[in-house]
C-alpha cells in the first residue's frame, strides 16, 4: 500500500519589539539571569498586564502579508498550568478568538506553485528558561531565569496542507522570509526567535480522512525540520505496515541520533482551563488601523520573485535566491541599475557573493563595475573574481585596483597582432597541419598567445585574430 503524509506546521515567532508584550522590560536576548524582569513579568501579587501596541501591529502586518482576515475583536485568555518558568502559573494567549483567521501563502515547488492554508495567527507571551543543575550529591535542582517571560510571540498555525518534508521545508522558508521582510521577527532559529512544531500523520494514498497524528518538537533548523519529518513519516508508515498503530503524542526530535522520541506526559497536564483574561479587555482593531498598516507592507518574496524574473529576464530559480533576502534583492537591483548591460550576469555575481553582500562589505557599484568590465572584455572572468576579492581585502575601488594590478585584458586587435604574428611564425608545422584541416589546433594557438600575453589577452579577440590570420 502506498502512503502519503499529512503535515501541519505551527510556528512561534518572537516579535521584533523593544519591550515585552505586557510590561516595559527589555525583550532583548542574552542579559544576565533575571536582569530583564519586573513585578509584572515575575507575577508578583496585584500587578497587571498592559498590551504593547507594536506587538499587535507586528501580528496584524503578518496577518495582512499572509492574506488572513484580521478580526475586529479578539480576546486574550489564560492558559493555566504550573511550571517554575511560568510565574503567574498561566500564560496569556489567545484561544477561542484569535487576532487573525483564514489566510494562505504560496510556495514554490519543482512542479510549480502550491497554496498552503493558514488557519490562524494569535499572540501570546513567552515563558522563562530553566537550567538544570548537575546531579552531584544531594543538589539536584533547577534554576529559573525569567528574562524571557512575557517576551511577545506570535503563533502561526497552518492547515494540514503539506504532503512531503520538502513542502514543509518550502513553507517554513517562505514564511520565515515573509516575517523577516516585514521586519516583525529577526528569524534567528538558534536563539529561538523562530520555532517550529509539526503535526504529522500518514494515510493510505487517495483516502480522505486523517490518521492519528504525532506532534514533533525541538527542531531548530530548516534542515532539522525536514529530517524530523522524513524520519517520523517513515516511522509511522513502518509502524502501520507492521500491524501497529500510531499513538497521539508529543515526540522530541533528537538531532544527534536522527530520531524522534516519545515525550511522556500525564494526561491531566492538558487541562489548561482556558478562560478570558479578566485583567485585559477585548483587543479591538478598527478598520482604519488595519488600512494604515496595510500601507506599510513591503513587496513580499513571491511578488518580488515574479517581478525580478520578468523584469530582468533572469531565471525564476535565481530570482528566488535573490528574493530570499530583502537586502540581497535590493542590492541586486541597485547594481543592475548602475550597469544595465547584462542583468543575468549581475544576478549570478550577486548570488556568488551573497554572504559577503549580506554582511555589508560590498557596494552595488563594485559588482556593477566588475560585470561591466567583463562584458566589455576589459577584464577576464578570473580577473573579475580576483578584483572583488582584492576590494574586500583592501577596500580600494575596483577600477583603481584593476589598473594598479594591470589586470586589464588586451582586447585591442592591433596590440595583439604582433603576438599572434610571433606565435604563427614560431610554429610552422602546426600552421601547416591546421591549414591541412586540423581545426582543433586553434586552441593550441590560443594557448600560445595567452601564454605570450601572460594571461592578459582577451581569448575571444585572440580567437578571431588567429582565424583571420590563419585563413
Amino acid at each position, binding site marked *: 500500500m502506498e502512503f502519503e503524509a499529512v503535515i501541519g506546521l505551527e510556528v512561534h515567532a518572537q516579535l521584533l519589539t523593544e519591550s515585552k508584550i505586557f510590561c516595559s522590560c527589555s525583550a532583548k536576548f542574552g542579559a544576565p539571569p533575571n536582569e530583564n524582569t519586573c*513585578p509584572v513579568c*515575575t*507575577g*508578583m*501579587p*496585584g*500587578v*497587571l*498586564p*498592559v*498590551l504593547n501596541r507594536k506587538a499587535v501591529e507586528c501580528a496584524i502586518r503578518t496577518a495582512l502579508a499572509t492574506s488572513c482576515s484580521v478580526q475586529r475583536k479578539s480576546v486574550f485568555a*489564560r492558559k*493555566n498550568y*504550573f511550571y*517554575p518558568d511560568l*510565574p*503567574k*502559573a*498561566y500564560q496569556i494567549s489567545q484561544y477561542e478568538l484569535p487576532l487573525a483567521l483564514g489566510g494562505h501563502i504560496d510556495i514554490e515547488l519543482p512542479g510549480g506553485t502550491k497554496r498552503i492554508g493558514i488557519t490562524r495567527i494569535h499572540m501570546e507571551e513567552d515563558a522563562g528558561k530553566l537550567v538544570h543543575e548537575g546531579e552531584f550529591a544531594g543538589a539536584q535542582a*533547577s534554576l*529559573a531565569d525569567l528574562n524571557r517571560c512575557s517576551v511577545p510571540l506570535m503563533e502561526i498555525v497552518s492547515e494540514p496542507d503539506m504532503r512531503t518534508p520538502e513542502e514543509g521545508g518550502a513553507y517554513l522558508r517562505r514564511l520565515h522570509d515573509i516575517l523577516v521582510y516585514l521586519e516583525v521577527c529577526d528569524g534567528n532559529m538558534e536563539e529561538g526567535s523562530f520555532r517550529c512544531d509539526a503535526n504529522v500523520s500518514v494515510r493510505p494514498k487517495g483516502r480522505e480522512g486523517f490518521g492519528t497524528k504525532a506532534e514533533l518538537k525541538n527542531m531548530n533548523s530548516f534542515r532539522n525540520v525536514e529530517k524530523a519529518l522524513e524520519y517520523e513519516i517513515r516511522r509511522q508508515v513502518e509502524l502501520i505496515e507492521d500491524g501497529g498503530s500510531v499513538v497521539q503524542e508529543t515526540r522530541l526530535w533528537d538531532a544527534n541520533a536522527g530520531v524522534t522520541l516519545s515525550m511522556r506526559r500525564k494526561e491531566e497536564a492538558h*487541562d489548561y*482551563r*482556558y*478562560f478570558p483574561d*479578566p*485583567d*485585559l*479587555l477585548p483587543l479591538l482593531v478598527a478598520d482604519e488601523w488595519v488600512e494604515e498598516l496595510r500601507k506599510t507592507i513591503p513587496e513580499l518574496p513571491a511578488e518580488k520573485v515574479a517581478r525580478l524574473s520578468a523584469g530582468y529576464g533572469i531565471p525564476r530559480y535565481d530570482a528566488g535566491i535573490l528574493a530570499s533576502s530583502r537586502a540581497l534583492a535590493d542590492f541586486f537591483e541597485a547594481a543592475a541599475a548602475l550597469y544595465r548591460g547584462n542583468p543575468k550576469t549581475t544576478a549570478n555575481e550577486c548570488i556568488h557573493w551573497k554572504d559577503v553582500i549580506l554582511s555589508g562589505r560590498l557596494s552595488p557599484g563594485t559588482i556593477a563595475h566588475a560585470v561591466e568590465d567583463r562584458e566589455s572584455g576589459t577584464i577576464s572572468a578570473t580577473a573579475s573574481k580576483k578584483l572583488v576579492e582584492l576590494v574586500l581585502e583592501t577596500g580600494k575601488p575596483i577600477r583603481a585596483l584593476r589598473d594598479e594590478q594591470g589586470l586589464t585584458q588586451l582586447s585591442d586587435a592591433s596590440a595583439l597582432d604582433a603576438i599572434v604574428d610571433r606565435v604563427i611564425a614560431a610554429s610552422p608545422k602546426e600552421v601547416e597541419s591546421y591549414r591541412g584541416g586540423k581545426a582543433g589546433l586553434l586552441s593550441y594557438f590560443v594557448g600560445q598567445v595567452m601564454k605570450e600575453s601572460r594571461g592578459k589577452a582577451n581569448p575571444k579577440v585572440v580567437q578571431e585574430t588567429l582565424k583571420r590570420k590563419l585563413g
Partner: protein
Amino acid sequence: MADVPVHEWTLLEAARKVREKEISSRDLTGALLARIERLNPGINAYITVLPERAMAQAAELDEAQARGELRGPLHGVPMGLKDIFCTRGVRTTCGSRILADFLPPYDACVTEKVLRAGAVLLGKQNMDEFAMGSSTETSCFGATRNPWDVTRIPGGSSGGTAAAVSAAMAFAGVGTDTGGSIRQPASLCGVVGMKPTYGRVSRYGMVAFASSLDQAGPITRTVPDAARMLSVIAGHDRRDSTCADVPTPDYLAAVDRPVKGLRIGLPKEYFESGGLSPAVKAAVSKALSALIDQGATAVEVSLPHTTFALSAYYLIAPAEASSNLARYDGVRYGHRAKGASGLIEMMSRTRAEGFGPEVKRRIMIGTYALSAGYYDAFYGKAQKVRTLIRDDFTSAFGKADVLLTPTAPTPAFRLGEKTDDPLTMYLSDIFTIPCNLAGIPGISVPCGLSPEGLPIGAQLLSNHFREETLFAAAGAVERAVPLPRVSPIEG
C-alpha cells in the same frame, strides 16, 4: 459645646485642623497610635501596626508644612489600608500564611495616591484571607471582632478596616469589594462604605481575588469623608488596563446636592427575600422615609434575575481566583513547604500549608468550574447569567436614579456562627453581589440600630460612573438619621 475627643473627629475635621495648625500631625498620629495600642488587642483590626514609620511620616509632614508645603487634602491625617494593598517595604499578607513575610518592592496605586495626598499610614488592616469571606474569620492572623459587640463578627472581607474606622483607630481606611466586602462590613460596623464603579479606582498593586469584580473603595465614618477619600483614590492609571479613562468629579460637592425629584427604586426581589430580618427592613424603611421627606419619590422596580446572582458569583469569582492564586507556588516569594523531594510535591504542599480552608474550597470550585467538560455548564453559563443581571439593572435605571436596598440581610452575627456552613455564610452577601456582577457603584450608609443595639446599613446603587448621585442620596440619609459615629467601645 463639649470638646469632641481627637479620635472622634471626622476625616475632614482632622484634615482641616492639621491644615489650620490647630494640631500637628505628630499629635494626631500619636493619639491614634495610643488608641490602637489600647483597643487593637481586643478587636484585632490591624495585622501590622507601624508606630515608628507613622511617627516618622507625621514628623516629616509637619516639617513640610512648616516650610509651607502641603502635600494634599489628607496632609498629616493618619489612616489605614486593608492588607491587600501592596506597600513598598511593608509586609503585605492578604491575611494569608502564604504571604506572611512578603515584602513588595512596589506600592499599589491606591497606596501611592493616599501617600501623595499626605496621609500617614498607621498600619495594614485585617481581612478574610485573600478577601474570601464575609466575617473576617478566615484571616490567618485571627478573627477581627465587631467593636459594637466583641462576640460578633465585623463582617468581611474588609472587616479590619471597618472595625478600625468604627472604633476610631483610623480616620479612614481603604477596603476592597468583590461581592460586598466593603459595604457589608461597613453596614455591620455602623460606618460608611463605598464600592465605586468597576474601573473607577486602579487595581494596580491590589492583590487580586476576582479580577473582573474587585474594586477598591473608602470606608469612613461619614458620607463627606467617603466622598473626599474617593476623590483621592479615583482616577485613570495606565498600569491597569481595566481602569476607566474618565475625569474624577468633585465628590465632596455632590454630598450636599438636594435629592428633591430623585427617583428611588425599590427592587421588590430584595425586600421579598426570606432571610431579611425585620429590624433591617424597618431601618431601611426609615432611610426611605428620610429621602421622601426631602423630596425624593419612590418607585418599585424589578431585578428578576436576582435569585441567580449568588450562584453566578460563586462560579465566576472562584474561577478567576483559582487562576489568580495559582502564582503562589513557593518559587519566587511567599511560603515554601520544607523538605519536599520534587517540584510537584513542593508546590502542592506549599499551597496546602499556605492556604486556609475557605481559600482552598474556592480554588477547588473554581478549578472545577473551568475544567474540561464543565466549562460551559458552569463558568460559561455564569457569564451569561451575568449578562442578564446587568441587563436587569440597565432597565431598572430607566425608571429610577438610585436603588435602595438593605446592605446585609441581618445585623452582625456571632463569631463561629456560620464558619461550618459555607453556603449560609455566602448568603450574607446576597444583596451586595449583583452590584459587582453589573459593575455598578454602591454605598452602604448607616440607617438604624437593631433592638440589640447593632448597626444596620442601607445600600444605595446607581448606574455606572454615577457615584455623585449615591453621595447625594447617602448624604441625605445620613443627615436625617442621626446615629453615633463611633462604636461604643472603650478599652
